[in-house]
């Protein structure tokens, strides 16, 4: 069976340490992960396996960088890639450029299937959303924004929470 998420995953680094009992592998030094056209570069990449299958990747770096073709560019201090739910969670100065729109926040979550972006603030780090004029003219129609409700249409116009209070959540409708 392919690893969750379809394509095989290649991870490389200067050195690595495996913990047999814990089923974890820590790759250090110029660490890179490649899956299809998805590429992640970090200082440290930590892999977690379940029943001999790779299920979770945790990367740290200054920053961690992730690219998916020309459509997605993301960076943050920490990045967690859950292969089963096919979701990226970026924390620590998270920044996502997706189809020309930019999302910044303390925490940005990106769903690889629905292309949905959730950015949330924390402390004084507020959410920032930049939609270039070109994108607004096209008038992407936001759908109801339930998790996974998207029918795959690009729905990345996030409406920041007006009062921007702590824990305010700018959800993509």
């Amino acid at each position: 069976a392919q690893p969750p998420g379809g394509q095989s995953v290649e991870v490389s680094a200067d050195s690595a340490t495996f913990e047999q009992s814990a089923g974890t592998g820590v790759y250090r030094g110029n660490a890179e992960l490649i899956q299809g056209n998805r590429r992640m570069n970090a200082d440290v990449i930590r892999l977690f396996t379940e029943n001999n299958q790779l299920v979770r990747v945790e990367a740290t770096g200054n920053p961690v960088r992730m690219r998916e073709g020309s459509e997605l560019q993301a960076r943050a201090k920490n990045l967690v890639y859950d292969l089963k739910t096919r979701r990226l969670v970026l924390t620590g100065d998270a920044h996502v450029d997706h189809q020309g729109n930019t999302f910044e926040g303390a925490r940005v979550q990106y769903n690889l299937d629905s292309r949905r972006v959730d950015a949330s603030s924390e402390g004084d780090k507020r959410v920032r959303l930049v939609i270039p004029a070109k994108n607004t003219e096209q008038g992407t129609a936001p759908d109801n924004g339930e998790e996974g409700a998207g029918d795959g249409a690009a729905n990345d116009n996030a409406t920041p929470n007006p009062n921007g209070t702590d824990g305010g959540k700018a959800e993509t409708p």
Partner: protein
Amino acid sequence: MRRQGLLSASGILLLGLIVLMTLHEWDNPLDGDREAFLSAPLIIADNITAKAYDRDTGKVSYDLKAEHLEQYQREALTTLSAPDLRMENENGVWTIHSKRGEVRDNGDQIVFLDQVEARSENNGVTLSTERLEYLNDAGQVRSPGALTLKHRDGSTRAGNMESNLTSGEMTLGKGVVSEFTGSN
């Protein structure tokens, strides 16, 4: 009378000389013979089984089989053909096999050479390399050169490896590339 005295003195001298030469020869055989004697194997054995026991627990720390064994005293070295090692601890069972092997430090270090294959019975990981060193007392296995690991969800290549059998931690260095293709 003088003639007789002279004969007997030279006779004694001659006899003494012969004894001295014989003793000299006895004590220092010819160099060639000596080298041959020292470099010859002290022990030659076939189809051997050797077990090592843990000083503290008394359990078998490893069980070593080999088709052919030669032990050399001067180099404190034992050479093996087709060695097969089995070792077990709380982290599971590892087996190691290769074409040639060497045992040093009174059995504390076993070096596997030439098409080395190691396998973990627990998680099915197999390791292939050209040289693998097993240090019994330190509970370590290391590969100073390139190696390939095959694990159920893929494979990993590295420039060298060190594994602590007690903690179950394995460290790879000199460039590591892993490919996860999914469990098979």
